[in-house]
Structure formats: structure tokens, C-alpha cells
């Protein structure tokens, strides 16, 4: 799950408001995905002293977007009246592409990036690399050009049917 799940009755109005606020923060590298779609936002919680605590997690250790996202989250909190919120980065459990929301996967596809084909938890993934569908024409006749595409989270593919090159968001 992308976030710590608690019963709705335990979620304060401020927490809902902050979540809504942060759902508008977009990934600078893939500007159709919010940090909620990506599963980067891990926790929003009101502390006993009333301050909000927000936890985010990096996708990859070296993802250059992490610094930018931290700045954007801070700015969104400040602008939303939560300048005293505590913003922290958590590493454990490590981010996985399984935390991409279903909406996030569809947004990726519409943007021209093939979403991860398999769940990381799937035992099938250990046996073979799944066929990747072309985000443009849907063909499964695609080939991996390079394990690393424009960013560490993506591989570079080519569709054999429509001939288009495309990025594939890798399973991690």
C-alpha cells in the first residue's frame, strides 16, 4: 500500500486536507503523475502537538527528482497554511513499483510510458521477463533496446508493430 492505512474515523480533517494538497504535487520528471499516484507519499499524520507530519520516500537512491519533490512538497505545505509541518524522508520499506496506483498506471500509459507489467511480489517475475505492451498501439511484439532509458526507473523499448520507441517503467 502506498500509505499507512488507518480507519477513516481516525483521520483528522487536517490530514485529509494535506493529502488533497499533496495530491496536486506532480513528479517533475513525469508531470502527469502526482506523488500520490507514484506511491511516494507514505504518511500524513497529525502529531499530538497539532503539527502535521508528512513522510515521503525516494523511488531510486539516486533519483534526482527526489530533491525537487521535497522542495515542491515543502512549498505546497507552506502555501496551504502548514508551514510548521514536519517533512521527513523514509527509506524503509523500500519503494516498489507495486505502489503505483491503478490511476497512475493509466496516466503513464496515456503519457506514452508503458507501466510495469508484473507485480514485484509475483513469483512469475522470477522465471521470465514479462512481455511489455506498446503504450501506443497495444502490441506485445516489443523489444528491449536498453535496460536503462531516460531515467533509472525506466527501460528503453521499441515496438515491432508500430515501430515507435517508448519508455517502460521498470518493476522495482
Amino acid at each position: 500500500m502506498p500509505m499507512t492505512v488507518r480507519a477513516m474515523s481516525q483521520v483528522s480533517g487536517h490530514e485529509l486536507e494535506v493529502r488533497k494538497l499533496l495530491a496536486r504535487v506532480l513528479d517533475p520528471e513525469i508531470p502527469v503523475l502526482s506523488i500520490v499516484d507514484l506511491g511516494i507519499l507514505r504518511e500524513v499524520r497529525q502529531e499530538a502537538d497539532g503539527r502535521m507530519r508528512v513522510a515521503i520516500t525516494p523511488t531510486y537512491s539516486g533519483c534526482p527528482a527526489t530533491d525537487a519533490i521535497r522542495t515542491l512538497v515543502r512549498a505546497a505545505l507552506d502555501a496551504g497554511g502548514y508551514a510548521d509541518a514536519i517533512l521527513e524522508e523514509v527509506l524503509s520499506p523500500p519503494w516498489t513499483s507495486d505502489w503505483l496506483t491503478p490511476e497512475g498506471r493509466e496516466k503513464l500509459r496515456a503519457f506514452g510510458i508503458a507501466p510495469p507489467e508484473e507485480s514485484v511480489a509475483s513469483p512469475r517475475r522470477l522465471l521470465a521477463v514479462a512481455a511489455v505492451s506498446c503504450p501506443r498501439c497495444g502490441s506485445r511484439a516489443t523489444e528491449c533496446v536498453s535496460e536503462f532509458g531516460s531515467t533509472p526507473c525506466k527501460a528503453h523499448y521499441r515496438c515491432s508493430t508500430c515501430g515507435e520507441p517508448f519508455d517502460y517503467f521498470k518493476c522495482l
Partner: protein
Amino acid sequence: MSATLAMPGAPDMTPEEARCVYVLRLADTSLVLGQRLAEWIGHAPALEEDLGLANLSLDLIGQARLFLTYAGELEGRGRDEDALAFLRDAPEFLNLALAEQPNGDFGHTIVRQWLIDAWQLEVYAALEHSADTRLAAIAAKAVRETRYHYRFSSGWLVRLGDGTPESHGRVQRALDELWRFTPELFTPDEIDERMSRAGLAPSLAELEPRWSARIDEALRAATLVRPVTQPYPWHGKRGIHTEHLGHLLGEMQHLQRTYPGARW
């Protein structure tokens, strides 16, 4: 494997000091290897490989930042990741000597990468279970990235080794040249032993057969021959480096040394 190495001062170190040295070694191996790979940007044989090496570099430097920040906190002298990366001299760097070896041709870089990827895979997988939760969290993140690194480097090792006579000859020569740096990967010293006894780090002796089996499997697929060479007597993780590290640091640290505290 040779016996445990003596690390000057190690027996007198506090547990925090020993842990700091251990974390710095992991940090420096990733940082130095990441810096080496970054030298390829704009020079790789194909655009895809240029991007691939740059991405590996990015992951490694990202891992190094996490380890360096932690090492700085353990040290408790107020040094952050930047101070540790840019303001230490070569003898204070504790990376494996293999990581600092020059790039050579693409095949040479692939062999160096593949040997270290296979090592990091074992070390990080074991560190995921460390009693040190901070170390375990960084390793859990890093091992997932390293699996992709290994797929990249071992894939190229096989394509080049089982490729043309020219590519085969080049990677075999690279392997023959770099193999002497591999005993350091599994030669424990007092720091390694202390960390292992405390349940904070794996026993290198236990990891070695797994690494070796993985290496042999890839060598078979790549039709390459495992070299028999004399181990290199220098040990990077104890601060004793080949002449190449100083040149690498000269470039990496130039800006911060010339304009201390420069930001952009």
C-alpha cells in the same frame, strides 16, 4: 583467502568508530565507482550504453550519499555527505581498489562493473538483515537497484565474451588485469570481523562461495577463463590505494577545493 588483516587502530576503536569505518567503505566504493562511470558520459560506444552507464552512476552516487550521510552522523564531528566526499584526501578514502581502476575500453569497464555488481549483490542482500536498521534500510533499497546493474553488466559480459574474437580478447585481457584486485573483496580485516560478530554485517567468508558461483556461471556463458593471478597486495578499504585514486579525486574535488562551499 589470507588471514585477517591488521587494521591500525582497529582494536582501540569504539563500536561507533568501527561502524563508521565500515559504512565509509561501502560509501566510498559506490562513490568512486559512480564517479568512474560518469567519466563515460558522452563517450560510450552507443547512446543507449551512454545512458545505461550514466544511470548506473546515478544509482551508485545516490547510494553513496545515503551511506556518507550515515557515516557522518556516526562520526559525530559535523561532517555531512559533501564534506566527506569532497574534502577528504586519498588515504582517507576506504573504497575497494578495484572500484578506482581506470575505465579502459568499454569491455574493461564492463568487467570491473560486473565484478563489483556481483559483490554488492551479496553484501547488500546480507545487510538487509543487519541489526543496524539504518544500514538495513539503505541496503534493501540498494540491492533492488543492483539487480538491474548486474543484469546490465553480466548481459554485456556475455555478449562481448561470446562475441567476436576482438571483443572476446579484450574482455579476457580486462579480466586478467583486474582479477588481482578481487581478493580484497573477501579478505576480512578487524573491522569486518567486529561488525560480523556484532550481527551488523555479514561474514565475508560466507559470501565468497556465492559470489564465486555467480562469477563462474557468467564466465561459462561468456566463454571466458577465470584467471589465476597473484593478489594485489594493496588494500583500498584500509586507505592504501593505487595511484589512480588521486587523479580521480583531483577531478571530482577540484571545484569544492578551489571554491570552498561553492553552491549552485
